Structure formats: C-alpha cells, structure tokens
C-alpha cells in the first residue's frame, strides 16, 4: 500500500495557541533494505567543510617546490610536504598553480589569499571580506535539517578565536576554540542520541520553538522600515534566530538511527601555548569530535581552522615562530628551498593528515565518513616568504558520495582560485552556476574531478 506521507512530510499542530510543526521520524518504510540510503534513491547525505591552515607550503622563487607533484592527473607522486596525506592519496585531489587576481587591489598580506578563495574577490581592506564566504552558500543548500547548520571550529590555540566564515563580510563566525567547548556544544545539553529507543520530544524545546516562531510577523514588519545597513545587521541577527529555530525544530523530530554514531567522552582541553605539536593534537581531538557530530547527523557543514593566516605556531623549544621563519629564512643553496620552513610546513600538514584520518576512521555504509564528505583545504599564501598569492595550495578531499573523482593533480597554470571553489560548491550540490567577480569571475568548474 502506498504511504500517504513521505520523508519530507510535516505534522502540523497547535501548542499554547501557537502552531507547532513536527517532522516525521525516519521510518523504516522510507529506507532501502540495508539502510545505506533512502528507499527513494536518495544517498546518504554528503557533508562539506573547509579546512584552513596558515602560511601555505614551500615553494622557491627559482621554481622549485616541496609540494607540487610533477605528474598531472591521476596517480600523482607524493611530494615531501604531502607525506601526511599519503594514506588518503586516492581520496585527495591536489590543485596547484591557481592564484588570486587582485584586479588592482593590493595584496593584503595573509588576507587576500583566503579571502579570494572564499568570496571570489580580492578584498579591499584587511579584516573584512567583500562578500559572504562560500561555505555559507553551501550551508544554506545542504545544511538544513540538521541541528547545526554549520559547525565552526578553531584548533589554532591563537590569542583570539579565528574563523573565516562570514555571511556579511564584516562579521565572522564565533568558532568553538577548544575541544571541551566543542564537545559541550555538540554533545552537551540539547544533544539527542539518535540511537536511543527512549526518545521523547522535550516540552521546553517545543515552547521555545513556538515563542521564536511567534515573532516572525513582527520581525518582518520591523525589517520594512529600516535602512539598508540596518537591514543587513538585522538579517545577520535573524539568521542566527532562524538557525536556532531550525535547531529546535530538529530536536522535535525523532532522529534516524546512525550506526556510526557513538557519543564520545568529554575531552581535556589542550595545554596552553600554540606550539605545533599542541595545535596538531588539538586538531586531532577536535576532528574526532567533528567526525562523530557528522556521523550523528548534528550537522552537514563545517569550517575548520588549523592555524591562522598569521600563524602563531612554533616548534616546541624554539624562540622563533613559524611565521617569522617563513620570512627570515634564506633559501639553502644546496637544497634549493627553505629547510626550516619546509620542516614546519610538514609538521602543519601532519595536523591535516590527522584530521583526515579521523574522518576516514568512521565507517559509514560501505565506505567511510570521508567517502561521503568533501573537504576543501587551502591556505592563505603560496610562497609565504613574500606573501605570494600565486600557487596557493588547495586540496579537495573525500569522495563526496562518489561525486568527486578524487586522487588527481590539477595544474591551474595561473587560473583563478575561484574555479576550485566553484568546483567544490557544485560537487556538493550547492545551486551555484558562477562564482567570483572581475577577473576571478568564473562559470567554469574543473570538470576533470567532477563525477
């Protein structure tokens, strides 16, 4: 007998004079035989995230490189600074030779690079972007229906929390900057174990939800009489309100069971100091929490910062920070590169390797969480010594549920970085046909990596 309801159906009711909408739980009738996909053919959801680290990877002005493979296409060789991703090579595509084009705007050091990648335009001023970061477009497209539209994480142990995710270009996300804060957010009060058989909707959440809903008309009326600038501010504010509503609505639904979801133990916060071993361990612990949050369907979108553009990290015991070393270390004549810089770049990449390992450790269906995820990893510079915004290292990691033809090296030959950003957006299903502005405007994704 054909069901009258689908997995998208909502039940409508009233609570305390206000309407309450309750989504249907994921009934077995909605799933296929082995539970790996919905019966209507929809796949396990694809997750998307950005991973940022500061100070690029090592190039030399004479053309040498420690990270760009010589082989183009599938089967690229593992360069010294890519060692940490070697175990996942078949799931990682490497993008070299892409650049940010300023169209006359100056290179704002440690800012123009990732701003260009995320927004599609070189910014006019440091500390601001000229538009929203594209992860927010992705979140709007695929982040609905989960408790958190986006999870923003900063593992850098910097003096100030670091996030490059923004909806306005002026206000940036407030990331969880310690493992304990992230754990509390993900698995503290409000978390519902999707595997629990003893699930009931929380009346207090229903009440809060209805209260928020009740102000909808008022806030629409309020928006009408405001200036453009004030409307932008309020839009940002109400965006957060809507996220809250969404979270509450999700908590009124009985979640589908998730085999891979295991509630982790609360972690300990990292010791003080931003030495690279501490940052990498922080990255590993926070990646494990993130992975479980994705597996438990708490969110489908995340942003992750390993180190800021002006990275504060350093080798334990050294009086020099990595940032300083990239600038002051001469190129070794025999080696042809900056050895200490390269050593630190490799250390930083170990953090990225640990991050990917945590996502790849979670079995999901017939693959891993990483197989159902696309991580776009990138930095702020190419040759960090001179703050170059040419040849910024970029990676697409994970198979995105089969949509990413991973394991390739794509040489950009001076193309704009926006081609990689657009490719990422289109792979995960964001409805974006073109991206960027000026010389970086593109409607030309990199088809070679798109299934």
């Amino acid at each position, binding site marked *: 007998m054909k069901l009258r309801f689908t997995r998208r159906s909502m039940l409508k009711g009233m609570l305390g004079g206000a309407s309450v909408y309750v989504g249907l739980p994921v009934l077995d009738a909605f799933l296929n035989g082995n539970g790996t996909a919905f019966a209507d053919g929809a796949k396990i959801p694809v997750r998307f995230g950005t991973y940022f680290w500061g100070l690029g990877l090592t190039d030399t002005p004479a053309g040498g490189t420690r990270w760009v493979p010589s082989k183009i296409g599938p089967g690229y060789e593992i360069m010294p600074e890519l060692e940490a991703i070697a175990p996942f090579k078949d799931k990682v595509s490497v993008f070299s030779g892409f650049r940010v084009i300023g169209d006359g705007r*100056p290179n704002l050091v440690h800012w123009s690079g990732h701003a260009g990648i995320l927004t599609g335009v070189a910014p006019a001023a440091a500390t601001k972007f000229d538009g929203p970061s594209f992860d927010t477009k992705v979140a709007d497209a695929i982040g609905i229906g989960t408790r958190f539209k986006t999870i923003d994480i900063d593992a850098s142990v910097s003096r100030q929390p670091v996030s490059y995710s923004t909806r306005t270009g002026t206000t940036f996300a407030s990331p969880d900057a310690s493992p304990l804060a992230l754990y509390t957010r993900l698995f503290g009060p409000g978390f519902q174990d999707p595997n629990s058989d003893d699930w009931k909707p929380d009346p207090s959440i229903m009440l809060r939800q209805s209260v928020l809903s009740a102000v909808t008309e008022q806030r629409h009326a309020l928006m009408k009489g405001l200036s453009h600038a004030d409307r932008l501010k309020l839009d940002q504010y109400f965006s957060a309100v809507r996220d809250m509503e969404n979270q509450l609505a999700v908590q009124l639904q009985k979640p589908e069971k998730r085999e891979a979801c295991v509630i982790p133990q609360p972690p300990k916060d990292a010791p003080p100091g931003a030495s690279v071993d501490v940052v990498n361990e922080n990255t590993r612990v926070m990646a494990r929490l993130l992975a479980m949050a994705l597996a438990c369907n708490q969110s489908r979108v995340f942003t992750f910062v390993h180190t800021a553009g002006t990275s504060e990290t350093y080798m334990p015991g050294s*009086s020099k920070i990595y940032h300083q070393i990239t600038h002051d270390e001469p190129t070794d004549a025999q080696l042809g590169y900056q050895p200490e810089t390269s050593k630190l770049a490799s250390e930083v990449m170990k953090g990225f390797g640990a991050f990917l390992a945590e996502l790849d450790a979670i079995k999901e269906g017939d693959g891993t969480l990483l197989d159902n995820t696309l991580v776009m990893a990138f930095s702020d510079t190419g040759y960090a010594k001179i703050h170059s915004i040419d040849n910024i290292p970029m990676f697409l990691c994970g198979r995105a549920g089969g949509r990413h033809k991973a394991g390739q090296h794509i040489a950009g*030959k001076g193309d704009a970085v926006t081609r990689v950003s657009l490719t990422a957006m289109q792979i995960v299903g964001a409805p974006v046909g073109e991206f960027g502005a000026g010389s970086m405007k593109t409607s030309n994704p990199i088809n070679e990596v798109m299934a």
Partner: protein
Amino acid sequence: MRAHVMRLCAAPLAVAMLGAPCAALAAWTKTYVVEWNEPAMYYGAKTGVTDPGTDCPAGTNPEPDWIQVLMKAGYTEEEAKWLRNPANPTRSPVHGQNQMAFRGKNRANVYVNPESTPDPGLVGVTGTIGEGINLDGDESTGFTSPDGEKGIDNMFYKTLGCWKTYRGPRRLSSGALQFNDAMRNGSWTTVVVVSGKGDDPMNDDDVLVGFYVSDDKLVKDGNGNIAWDYTFSIKPSRRYEAIFPARSRNGVITSTKPVDGSLREPAYLRDLQLTKAQVKLTMHPDGTLTGYVGGYRPWEPVYWGWVNARGPVIEVLTWVELPAVWYALKRNADYSPDGPYGKKTHISYALWLSAIPAYVMTPDASEEVTSVVSYKDLAPSEDTRVAFEAISSRIRVVDGIVIDPNAKWQAGPNAVILPPKNATGAAQ
C-alpha cells in the same frame, strides 16, 4: 613584439587642449612598462642567495642573537628570554615584541633615537665590483662594473649590500621579491617613454627618457609573467616623474645632463628622490629595455622607511639592528647638495629595472604619447611629505612600533618584564 611607435606630434595645440602637453617634436617614440625593478646590488657569490662571495667574503650578515642584544642593552637573561619567548603574550605574532625598541641608554627607543645606543656595526660590501652609474665622472672612485666600467658610484650598495634584505642574485633577494611581487600584483605601475629627434633610435644625439606612474595595473599572463603590449595611461603626478636628456649609441641610452627627479621605489619608502640623477639603459633587439637610474638620494628617509615598517618586525625578519643601518648610512653618505663641505645628507644609489613594450597613453587616454614631456602641471596638488608603504590601513605605527591601546601591558622604558610563574613555551 610590438612595433616602434614612430610619429610626429603634428597637432600640439589640439593635444594640449586634451590635457597632454606636446612641447617637443619627436621623430620616434618607444614606450614601456616596468616589469621588475630593484636596487642595483651586485651579488658576488656563484650560487645561493647568502653564500660568501667577492662582495661579502663572510656571506650575508648573520642573524643577531637577540637574547644577547637585549642583554647588552641592560635586560637580564631571564627578561631577554621571556621577551623572545613565543608564548609571551606581549610578543605579537604579527607586529613583534615592542619592547625590542627600548634598548637605548635609559631604555630610550633606539628606532627614533639611534644614537642612544653605540653603533652595533653593520658589515658592508668589501668587493670592488658594483653596478650603477658613474655619477661624478671620476673613474678613480667607486666600483668597477661587471663589464669593466670604472667609477661606478653606489655607496648605498657598499653600505647595505651584505644585508639579507638586499643580497642575492638579481630577482632573488628577499626585498626584491617582496616589493616586485606587490608591484606585479597591482600596487603601482611605472611606465617609461623614450623619444628622439633623429632618424635612428639606436644612435640618436637628442633623446629624452621619461618616467611616469600609471593607475592602470600590470597584467600577468598565464605563466605569471607581466604581459606585453598592454595599455597604460600616464597619471600626472608631482611626486613621481623624472625626465632625462640623453643620447643613444648602439642602443645604449646615457644621460647628457644630470637632473633632479623622483620615481616610485620598490621599498617601504615609496619615494626615490634623486638629485644629479642619470640613466644608463639599453634598448634590446627583442623590444625590452633594461638598465639603471642612478643619482644621490637622501639617506635618512631610507632609514625611516624601515622604522615605519615596524622596527621589531624588520629587525627580526631581516637580521639587522636598525641603529646599525642608521650609523652605516650616515657614515657612508657621499653627497651634499650644499657643496663638498656641506653635511652629507645624500648617498649615491642606482635602481636596476627591466621594462617591456607597452602602449602608453596620454592622461586622458585619448591617444598614445608621442614625446617625452612633463605632466606635472596637470597633476592635482598633493601631499609632498615622504611617502611610506602602508603596512595596513588599520595599523598605525608610532615610533617604529604598533601599539594596542587596549592591551594591559605596554612596552616602554619602565615596563615591568616578568614572566608569570606558569609560563610555558620556548626554553631558550
């Protein structure tokens, strides 16, 4: 390759009405855009960027031991180590350790008062080969050029040529890379116009060479090189313009009369103000133009360029004590506008440049330039104070350091430097 622009300035009145002076008739004109420029610093080693060479037998000046520098300035070892510790919250990962400034007598700020500390010493060039121009016509003084020309005046090179910022093969020193990368990404554009009245551009007794700036940005090709034959309109500027009377012999253009002029420099100090300036440029068969612009420049603004780029950052990143730079420039200055017995306020200098063919238009972009003339009269009045490269629009550098007014701890002569008991981080 772009063909020579060879046309007469046939309608001077009409062009002048459009905002493009046209005082001189030129028989030929060649136009270029600068794709690379850097201080002329001969590198005497065979390999590397810091190796020992004929210029600097001990190699590039080594990194100072900053713990020792601070201890010499009166800080205890514990204080010095804590000031240099990456875990010290007073040491900004971006702007450095402000307390580094206060190492003069009675902890005076050595950046603004370099004489408050004894000369730390800066090893200069000891080699005899140098690049540039014989500015004073005296072949018995100065360097010998790599191709044997004697009397090359470049005391700037002698003074700073072993400093890591400047030392390295052409296009590979860290300073040249940093600032040319900025220029090539659009920070500024310099165009060059060469015109002559003779029949043969390669051999012409009446040549003019004009340097101007443009608001049109350089364009890179797919390989990251600056693209040829793009179009640039001259921006009239009272600050950046220099016109040189010259002659050409076998394609080599040399000045016939020293002039005063100013160019946009690839440095933290934007203004290359030259007096008794000359050119020595070569027009190559492939259409490019390379060579030198030389002259005497005020040396103190050079020093302030580095101080304003944030003293603690420059010192640590470029391996130099800034007071040493001040003493060395003062010691080696070789020219006084007031005559041979006047105070030596200027130092001989040369800028090496490489330019590629480009279309250069009049300021209103109505037509290609056909001669070398001054556009200063068309320029709006502008601030004529010395211009420094902005570190950031949000950063205000005061006395060589960036002060966060909201910080609990402030650097200064009386700052208390005590590491907290639970401090972690570097051991050295």
